[in-house]
């Protein structure tokens, strides 16, 4: 187990493309950190630089107390689980798992002890004499985990290890990996493009876009206090409602324009967000999560009321995602959003997450309640959050 320090880590490919740009991150001993972002954001490249599979163009990498920037992959004391498992097809499960131990010339008794323990932890004991071709996707994934675990490395690296599994198995393996990581307490860096995976598994989540680290924090903080428009739009499903707006600071409150309507924030909002006052009268981007938009009929004492036309209702059983028209145009964050994001399709849609009891009807006009205390404001030019 060890800490991992990335200092200004940069990867520039020969053609001049910068895949990772000055990424700095400090990962504590035993911590589970998830790199998440859209395709091509540099998350896998960053992981591969930590693994030593990609040369580091500039910057410093430290694992534990040692600098590893130019150290050969096999000497970094890391183990990696790959997206397509990368099992050796001609070897049995037993030999696959024991392979790194064999190369490290570990004694037979120690090898057997570790192999048995690993097989037990991963529920693989009965499959030890099978070859990978005779295993299911989930079992292969566990063998790949086993090959990493058996080495007892300082750091686990996982590159989208669940992306080849079906949805049900993915949910199961998600909890399995979390359980194993907690049991072993090994520092882990996990790469995924699936924000649900990131939010549910990581102690901290690092969001990347265009090779730049956007924000790294606990999942709840990313969700509630995004550092910029990209994180706000990327994290959460359905995505945050982002639309252009103007604010006016009055004697009684702060007025936020929402199309041809407006809502009022209490003046106390400025205590938490003092920088907002300086943006009075400017066009800025306002954000509110669909979770903070209610069917007013079911939330009589909550939030500010606005009128909305119901365009579409997605019944999910436990809740209803309502696509509403309140006269604002959505602001897109540019990069592709997560796979599970279902907010695409209706450019003008403002999303609300209603309780299943809602009587909303498509085509009708209704009143929705907006929890204004959960509003976010972003600088339109820089995309950065306007807070303090």
């Amino acid at each position, binding site marked *: 187990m060890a800490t991992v320090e990335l200092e200004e880590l940069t990867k520039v490919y020969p053609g001049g493309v910068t895949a990772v740009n000055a990424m700095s991150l400090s990962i504590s001993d035993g911590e589970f950190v998830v790199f998440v972002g859209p395709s091509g954001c540099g998350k896998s490249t960053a992981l591969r630089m930590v693994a030593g*599979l990609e040369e580091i163009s500039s910057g410093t990498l430290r694992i534990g107390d040692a600098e590893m920037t130019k150290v050969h992959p*096999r000497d970094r004391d890391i*183990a990696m689980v790959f997206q397509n498992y*990368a*099992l*050796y097809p001609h070897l049995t499960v037993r030999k696959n798992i024991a392979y*790194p131990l064999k190369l490290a010339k570990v004694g037979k008794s120690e090898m057997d002890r570790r192999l048995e323990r690993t097989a037990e932890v991963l529920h693989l004991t009965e499959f030890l004499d099978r070859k990978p071709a005779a295993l299911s996707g989930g079992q292969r994934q566990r063998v790949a985990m086993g090959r990493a675990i058996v080495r007892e490395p300082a750091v686990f690296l996982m590159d989208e290890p669940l992306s080849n599994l079906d949805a049900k198995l993915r949910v199961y393996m998600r909890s399995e990996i979390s359980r194993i990581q907690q049991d072993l307490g090994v520092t882990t860096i996990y790469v995924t493009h699936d924000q649900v995976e990131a939010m549910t598994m990581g102690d901290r989540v690092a969001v990347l876009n265009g090779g730049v680290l956007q924000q790294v924090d606990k999942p709840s903080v990313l969700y509630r206090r995004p550092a910029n428009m990209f994180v706000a739009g990327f994290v959460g499903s359905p995505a945050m409602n982002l639309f252009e707006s103007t604010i006016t600071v009055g004697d009684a409150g702060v007025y936020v324009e929402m199309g041809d309507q407006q809502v009022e924030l209490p003046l106390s909002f400025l205590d938490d967000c003092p920088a907002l006052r300086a943006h009075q009268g400017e066009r800025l981007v306002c954000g509110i999560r669909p979770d903070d938009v209610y069917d007013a009929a079911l939330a009589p004492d909550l939030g500010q009321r606005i009128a909305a036309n119901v365009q579409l209702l997605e019944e999910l059983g436990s809740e209803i995602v309502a696509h509403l028209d309140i006269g604002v145009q959505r602001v897109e964050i540019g990069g592709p959003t997560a796979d599970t994001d279902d907010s695409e399709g209706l450019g003008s849609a403002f999303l609300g997450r209603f309780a299943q009891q809602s009587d909303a009807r498509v085509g009708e006009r209704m009143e929705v309640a907006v929890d204004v205390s959960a509003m976010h404001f972003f600088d339109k030019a820089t995309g950065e959050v306007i807070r303090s």
Partner: protein
Amino acid sequence: MSATALDDGLTPPSAAAPPPSARLRKRGIGRAAAWAFMIAILVISVFPFWWALRTGLSTNGQLFAGEQSLLPVGYTDNNFERVLGTASEEEILESLGRQNTGSFDFLQSLKVSVIVSTAVTIGQVAFSAMAAYAFARLRFRGRDKLFFLFLSGLMIPPIFTLIPNLVLVKNLGWLNSYPGIIAPFFFMTPFAVFFLRQFFLGISREVEEAALLDGAGHFRTFFGIIVPMSAAPLATLSILTYITAWNEFLWPLVVARDPARQPLTVALGQFTAQQPGTSPDWSGLMAGTLLAALPIIVIFLAFGRKVVDSIGFSGIK
């Protein structure tokens, strides 16, 4: 209702498609034609072998008397015994109808063919595999240009390199020796390198990266992971190389004048040349030819499926 449907331009189902019996009859004719074609190809392919066997089992003196017969004329197995060197003078006289004018040491030539083909196959597959891996995976400056240059060797007709190779082998003092016969084919051919490189490119890079992280270097990754994973194409290349080396004629003819170093292909050629033009020993020649082809026929029967599959895989049909 049906009138309306017809008025709308719709046709009843029976008019849209032929009845099932007509379809079956059509399919039956197609099948019969396909079978007839396959049988014709089979006969064309197998007939020369049968004719060689029939001639090999015939008495040489009676061949022209029964040249219309599809069966052996004056059945005898003496020709095979003659080729193998186990026939007595009387048996030779009986089957040949005259004194034996041509002879060759079949077993010695068989030994040369086996040694040469085995050595060429081992060397060529091993070195080609290593070169192919380097071209597929190792990163070095000018790799792709070098591969292209190497591949352009495929365009050079073998006859172009015959004389330079002969001069080289002569200067090395390797005429009439195994090294001389084997050397030009021992290391690699552009085709073998190309064939294996294409396969190696298809192997997941992550497997090699996993091996790297597990602590394996290039050599261990290659021999411990890549080679076992490539057993099928390596076996195929081995078979193709063995067959090609077995059938090689021109180079051993030029480099091996000593009968003790002549493989079967050359020895059979010499055997033919020794016959008088008026009454060549067709029966002996056919018996020898069949015996020479036997190992390759056995190999092909055992691994034919693999060869056909891999030729399909490599896209060279």
